[in-house]
């Protein structure tokens, strides 16, 4: 019986199901008990193996991009020009490799190129490969998250299209979060819960379905006392790691993005203070874990 209780505690610990106090007490015991440590290590490694085994199952959908990408240290114009040059170099290398392959040479007929052009082509390929290698080294990942994350882009696009003007109507006008949650339910298999908070500053106008990063998203429109609108994009994602709100500015629009409880959030508006206010209100609403 005692062993069963102990095993249950070990499982609860490795599955992150203990209360904070229980967790601290268990960790204190763990420091003095080698056998307990061995058990925890065993089940934690099994958990990691299961997660790793099924990590690629849903890889058909690209992972959510919260702004972290390669080549973040360089300026944006350099990043885009490097990408285009890399792809051009890759295309040229592939084209020349195709032309040089024995099969394509046979298909081309009895004519064989002379030695001089072949040497020239070889040098050109070597130069392109060297250039591509240099570009790859220069564009190594690292640095802070870049502002053009997919969620940021989706939030800004939705704000521009559906909330930037005070005269743009919402698809479904309702100020009751429960009514909107019900209206959104058929569109999202897992369901999207419209945050229910009370605020004197912000008033919920309604919602619409908007394009997200990989699938459709719910776009909620709020209005402040001055008539300025702020939009909240909520997109169900495939188990992203939770992240804290990240405030950025893109083309004059402030946007805060974060992920929590399997959803991606983007708050967009022209006034950064309103964006921060709405982010605080939404982020404070009850989360699943």
């Amino acid at each position, binding site marked *: 019986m005692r062993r069963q209780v102990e*095993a*249950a505690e070990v*499982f*609860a610990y490795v*599955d*992150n*199901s203990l209360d904070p106090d229980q967790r601290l007490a268990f960790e204190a015991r763990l420091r003095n008990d080698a056998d307990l440590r061995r058990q925890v290590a*065993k*089940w934690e490694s*099994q*958990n990691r*193996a*299961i*997660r790793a*085994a*099924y*990590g690629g*199952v*849903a890889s*058909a*959908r690209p992972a959510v991009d919260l702004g972290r990408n390669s080549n973040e240290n360089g300026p944006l114009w350099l990043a885009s020009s490097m990408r285009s040059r890399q792809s051009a170099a890759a295309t040229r290398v592939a084209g020349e490799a195709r032309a040089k392959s024995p099969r394509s040479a046979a298909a081309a007929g009895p004519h064989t190129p002379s030695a001089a052009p072949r040497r020239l082509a070889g040098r050109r390929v070597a130069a392109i490969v060297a250039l591509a290698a240099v570009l790859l080294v220069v564009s190594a990942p690292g640095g802070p998250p870049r502002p053009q994350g997919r969620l940021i882009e989706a939030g800004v696009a939705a704000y521009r299209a559906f909330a930037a003007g005070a005269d743009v109507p919402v698809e479904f006008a309702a100020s009751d979060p*429960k009514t909107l*949650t*019900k209206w959104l*339910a*058929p569109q*999202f*298999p*897992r*369901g*999207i*819960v419209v945050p*229910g908070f009370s605020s004197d500053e912000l008033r919920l106008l309604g919602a619409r379905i908007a394009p997200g990063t990989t699938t459709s998203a719910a776009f909620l429109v709020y209005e402040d006392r001055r008539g300025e609108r702020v939009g909240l994009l909520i997109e*169900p994602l*495939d*188990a992203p790691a939770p992240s804290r709100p990240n405030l950025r500015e893109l083309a004059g629009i402030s946007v805060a993005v974060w992920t*929590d*409880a*399997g*959803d991606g959030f983007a708050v967009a508006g022209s006034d950064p203070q309103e964006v921060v206010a709405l982010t605080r209100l939404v982020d404070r*609403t*009850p*989360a*699943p*874990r």
Partner: protein
Amino acid sequence: MRRFGLALVRDDRFVCDDVSAASLVDKLFRQASLTLIDDPADDFRSARVRAFAQFVRLYRRHVRRLAADEADGGWIEACGSNGRANASVTSGVRNLPLELREALLLVVLAGFSHRDAAAALDIPLAAVVDRLGRARARISTHVDAAHESTPREAAWPNAAHLRIVK
């Protein structure tokens, strides 16, 4: 949730490949969303638990129907096997009975707490802990057994039809 769904439905009995698993998961998602339309949840946590619970319920019903078809002599294509023990954890998970698999995947893959998993599966908390223990022990045994048998098989891949001749 899609990752959980794909992992749950992919067994070595009824769903043998990833394409079938993806199509079944999409179908069950649609059904789950239709059944949850008129009953929205109050917060993120309960919405998540109920969505997973509905998915699990629909999948159980699907499996029961397939099992009944199989018992009636219906034609169900068996998943192919190369006869070798697969040492992967994936194979261990696929070989688990459904009730153990769903508890384990809810907790490990979907990140549910034991209490939320109990709510989603509509069973007591103690039952979840018990199922987790059995599932983990089975996977561990499966992987260990497969590792023990693998070197011999690798050395003698066709040992079954070899005979010692004196």
